[in-house]
């Protein structure tokens, strides 16, 4: 998609720029405004915090982008992230005496990733076998996974992590928060997957026209299930980072995360109808949401108004995309 946009010619270079990179320009304007008005926004420490918060959300959002382009949705990522954190914490506690704390946490992480993948992949298979829409299936998981997380913890935060575990969520490597590296890696990986592999091309085809993709000999259910499975993996990674940052595995963390993730994907220009969207756009969406939240907090905007503004932004971004679609 990025190529088709770049090759589009307009009458005036400025107009063309605005039409081609609307969200990028709005993000730049927002950042400039915040630097000028919000006290402390431009400090390195603050910017790195924006990135760290964005990373937790963004890692999942890149997977979600693929899911939405494939014409599906996943509402369970917030609950999934909480569950992953509790799984890592549980293994860390239960196996520490046998294999050592570090190994126990690693086993827990692998288990969380496996659970994430299997649950996500199964959502796709449910759609195939029983014709249950992913919206319904993941709505059920939205509730159920959080229930499992609380069953694992017994309702209390598990603080069984080995020493040094807080590095992954809260630490710095070469002056940059560790989650930001994972964020960057996920971006690069998903960008490559969606643009330079036959799997990525198939995701666009399946979301754009399921029947045409099927008749072209593409295994549409495998493609859809894999996008959901990948998102499950990313959810587990993000959930582990969150648990590391807050120092415990708990069933009550990451509430509402799924809606922020979906909002970031939509602000980035991905169509909920499927077939259309970019990983790059999602990156912009994640940064945009992160800057606006941080900026409003620094400007002492009431939390309630922040919700209203974010709602307006989601709607505004979708409208902008619709309007641009018409003038292009």
């Amino acid at each position: 998609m990025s190529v088709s946009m770049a090759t589009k010619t307009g009458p005036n270079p400025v107009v063309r720029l605005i039409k081609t990179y609307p969200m990028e320009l709005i993000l730049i304007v927002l950042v400039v405004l915040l630097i000028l008005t919000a006290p402390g926004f431009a400090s390195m420490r603050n910017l790195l915090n924006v990135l760290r918060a964005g990373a937790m959300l963004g890692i999942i959002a890149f997977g979600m982008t693929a899911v939405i382009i494939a014409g599906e949705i996943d509402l369970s990522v917030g609950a999934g992230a909480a569950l992953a954190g509790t799984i890592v914490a549980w293994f860390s506690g239960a196996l520490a005496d046998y294999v050592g704390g570090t190994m126990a946490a690693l086993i827990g992480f692998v288990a969380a990733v496996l659970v994430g993948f299997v649950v996500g992949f199964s959502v796709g298979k449910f759609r195939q076998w029983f014709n249950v829409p992913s919206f319904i299936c993941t709505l059920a998981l939205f509730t159920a996974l959080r229930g499992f997380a609380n069953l694992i913890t017994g309702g209390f935060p598990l603080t069984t992590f080995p020493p040094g575990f807080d590095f992954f969520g809260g630490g710095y490597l070469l002056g940059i928060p560790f989650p930001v590296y994972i964020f960057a890696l996920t971006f690069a990986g998903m960008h490559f997957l969606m643009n330079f592999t036959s799997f990525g091309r198939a995701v666009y085809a399946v979301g754009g026209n399921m029947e045409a993709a099927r008749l072209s000999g593409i295994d549409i259910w495998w493609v859809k299930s894999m996008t959901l499975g990948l998102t499950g993996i990313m959810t587990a990674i993000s959930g582990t980072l969150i648990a590391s940052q807050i120092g415990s595995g708990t069933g009550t963390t990451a509430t509402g995360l799924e809606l922020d993730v979906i909002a970031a994907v939509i602000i980035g220009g991905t169509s909920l109808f499927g077939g259309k969207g970019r990983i790059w756009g999602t990156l912009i969406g994640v940064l945009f949401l992160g800057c606006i939240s941080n900026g409003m907090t620094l400007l002492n905007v009431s939390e309630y108004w922040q919700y209203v503004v974010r709602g307006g932004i989601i709607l505004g971004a979708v409208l902008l995309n619709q309007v641009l679609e018409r003038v292009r």
Partner: protein
Amino acid sequence: MLDANPPQNRTGGLLEFKDVGKTYGQTVALTQFSHRFSPGKVHALMGKNGSGKSTLVKILAGVILPSEGTIRVNGADAIFHTPHDAFGAGVVTVHQELSLIPSLSIGENIFLGRLPMTRRFGLTMVDWPKLHRDATALLHEMGLDLSSHQLVSTLSVGQQQVVEIAKAMSFNPSVLLLDEPTSALATREVHLLFTLVRRLRERGVTILYITHRMNELFEIADTCTVLRDGLFAGSVEMTQATPASIVEMMFGETAKAKRPARKVIDRSGAPVLQVEGLTRHGLFADVSFKVHRGEILGIAGLLGAGRTEVMRAIFGADRVDAGSITVNGKTLTAATPKQMKEAGLGYTPENRKEAGLVQILSTHDNLCLASLGHIAPSGVVTRAREQAYVGRQISDLAIKVPEPMLPVSALSGGNQQKVVIGNWLNTQPKVMFFDEPSRGVDVQAKRQIFDIIWDQAERGLAAIFVSTELEEVLEVADRILVMRQGRVVAEVDPTATTLAELYRLCMEGPTA
């Protein structure tokens, strides 16, 4: 809002046409049609595709206005700007596509848009008891044993067709148009429909019955009026007509199709594709055939004969109940389209918008859809790697595309069809199914598409060609299978048969 209480007892409509014509820009669809449809009879309207039949239906339904001429209903001038105008004049059309809402009851469907209202507790609300009472009365009057409360989704296609007619009758029409009402019906359901049509005739309703099926004419119609190339070709009383005389009216003096010199096909070796006893209950049964390398096998048949269904089933897109499919000597069972593609089959679907192309993706992407496995055996693809495949099809098939990176939806029908074909040629198939490749494309593009098929066959492709236009099947194919009601009823040599004969086979089968 439609009139809930149309005039009562308005039957026996006299329908007169005087010099009615319709042109679309340069294209003439109907010319100087003058005819008088006498009241209280079943008038069949026949003609092959493009004869002007559908234009006539659209004019009477109030979908389009005629360019010239006058129509009179019971002596009064009738100009239908909207379907509502047509209802008002007592002319009601039951279209070929069903327009009922499956999730609603029969009664609500019948009175949709004009639900009876009542005032209770100071509120205006739907009068459900009256609605179902009226609907039940209507259904009984027509001799239908259906409950007004029943959901339309629980009905068979035939019953839905009947409800559609009941809905039309609730407008109390003097003229009822039935546009190919039997095209989707099983034999038993056709009888149900005919009983209803006869009953309506007894009540004095004038019925215009559009059909492709010859045998139905003799069973149900009183007269038959034929259109050919937008012109009135004749009208006969059914008592004086024979199938041969009607086919002659439909086709006139037909010229032999022109085909390029085709080399003799070597049928001595093993066939590339062999199908034995393929059956899917209710759709087709016991279909067997072979195709050899370089051969173009045509499948002829009317709409609903099962042509598309058979092809889709062979390609693995739909389920098969019995039978075997052998590709290159290898028998495949319950294969998916993906496995069939790997075995060397390709399929260009009849509806390129819904099934052939991903409209929002670029021409470039659409040309690579089926062949990603060829282009990128490792799974990693780049635009540059794809470019070779895209460029080859664009130049080989002469696809007119200003910018391959723009959405394919911007292309003309003919060019989109070439993209569908190019997408499959990129997989280097051994056997290709061409399902209605010429539908909705202009004459020049049609010639080019036929040239592509002939050219690919020269290079060894076994092609299976399906078209509703029998002229095209005669022109393109080396050998023709005739399908009728889900079965292969005949095999003909296109060089030794005529269009009228092929048409007769499609309509009546070989014995009649």
